[in-house]
């Protein structure tokens, strides 16, 4: 039994009066890739953002490597916010890759990758650059370190963003639709990098509409629907027949994303 890298227990999240997550339970084993599928608005990004602590859950708990994220439960069912230093420590185990890349436009690729090493970890510039260059090489961009984001293609920008997350040696990588804003011919290079990371034993949670990727790389498939976790299991079980009607319906809308072979 492998240990759980991320444990989500009965997580609820509301924005004002609308409840977006309605009691999510999820366990992500260490070293595995979990793919999060679901129709638009089902709460995939919200769940991922809660795990990255970019959103605070309304109730429920999230544990990263067994450490509580953000809040500690007090005996009487209430919770208190943990000190900022604890939050930062737990959060530092997590890397996040966004749909919009979110590279800082005033820094080169290498600058983006090394920023936190220098500013947060207090590393020497030279030392940080060596790590940054190694990480860029890992995503196949060793010759692009001195380019600004505006001088890179979307696929290259996203790979820089992955290198930026990797530079801090996180235990868990979160991806929110990493290829959704890329031209179709550029998704491959990003998916390949992710495939390699998965093969190398990185723990990953990937929100994606790339059904083919999910079916081949995901060791666990989670299907979210209207804020609830509808299905959770290995791809053979989730995609195998008989199939849940909501999933079937969902897959049919993604025929061109590698779902054709499944449907």
């Amino acid at each position, binding site marked *: 039994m492998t240990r759980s890298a991320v444990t989500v227990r009965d997580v609820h999240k509301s924005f004002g009066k609308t409840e977006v997550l309605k009691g999510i339970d999820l366990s992500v084993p260490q070293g595995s890739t979990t793919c999060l599928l679901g129709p638009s608005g089902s709460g995939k990004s919200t769940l991922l953002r809660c795990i990255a602590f970019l959103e605070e859950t309304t109730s429920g708990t999230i544990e990263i490597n067994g450490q509580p994220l953000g809040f500690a439960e007090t005996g009487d069912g209430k919770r208190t916010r943990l000190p900022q230093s604890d939050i930062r420590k737990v959060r530092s185990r997590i890397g996040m890759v966004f749909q919009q890349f979110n590279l800082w436009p005033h820094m080169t690729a290498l600058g983006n990758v090394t920023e936190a090493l220098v*500013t947060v970890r207090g590393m020497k510039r030279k030392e940080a650059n060596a790590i940054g260059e190694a990480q860029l090489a890992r995503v196949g961009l060793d010759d692009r370190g001195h380019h600004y984001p*505006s001088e*890179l293609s979307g696929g290259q920008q996203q790979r820089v963003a992955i290198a930026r997350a990797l530079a801090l040696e996180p235990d868990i990588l979160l991806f929110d639709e990493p290829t959704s804003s890329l031209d179709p011919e550029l998704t491959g290079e990003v998916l390949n990098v992710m495939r390699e990371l998965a093969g190398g034993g990185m723990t990953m949670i990937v929100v994606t509409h790339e059904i083919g990727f999910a079916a081949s790389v995901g060791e666990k498939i989670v299907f979210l629907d209207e804020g609830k976790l509808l299905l959770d299991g290995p791809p053979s079980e989730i995609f195998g027949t008989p199939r849940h009607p909501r999933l079937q319906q969902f897959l049919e809308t993604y025929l061109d994303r590698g779902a054709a072979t499944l449907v």
Partner: protein
Amino acid sequence: MSIDFGLIFARMPEILAAFWVTVWIWIVSNVLAVFLGFGVATLRRYGPLWLDLLLRLLVEIIRGTPFLVQLFLLYFGGPFIGLSLDPIPAGLLGMTVYSTAYYSEIFRAGYNAIPVGHIEAAECVGLTRGQIIRRILVPEMTMLVLPQCVNMAILMMKETAILSIITVPELTLVVGAIGSQQYAFVEAMLLLALFYWFLVELSGFLGRIAEARLSKFRFAHS
């Protein structure tokens, strides 16, 4: 009657002294106002709500009234509340306060124009709020607001002429007076226009150089 600059050129040393007064008041007040304006925008963004509302009210008042009126109030009304200032300090203070209000709005819009994702990406790699402001927001904002800041500086260059009404010995006051004394008013005004035009062109030129140097950092398409 013909145009004759000779009468005016005879008084060139006085004119150059006035030119210098205009230039330094303009530069000092704008530099101060850029920093203060950034501070105001930052306090409004990160400070408590009451401070945001208070600063917003002050900014609205300053932007909603003519500079001329503010300057009158400061210079002639100041002594009633124990603030007696000589013309130059009063002019400098007035210019600084007035442009701070405008710069703060430029920076506020600049903050809002930075994609939230850039800040979230910084949070995710562990930067603190101060580090995010220093390392991400300020540099990104610089390239976003530079054109408006250059514009503002140019507008304020021309506003320095208003300081003449509280007898700051700047270009408009001095050259106007010389023109009257020498019976060469049109020549004086032409020369004055030339000076301002030169300064405006110069700041536009410097602004374009700065923009070109920053153009590499323009936002990446996604």
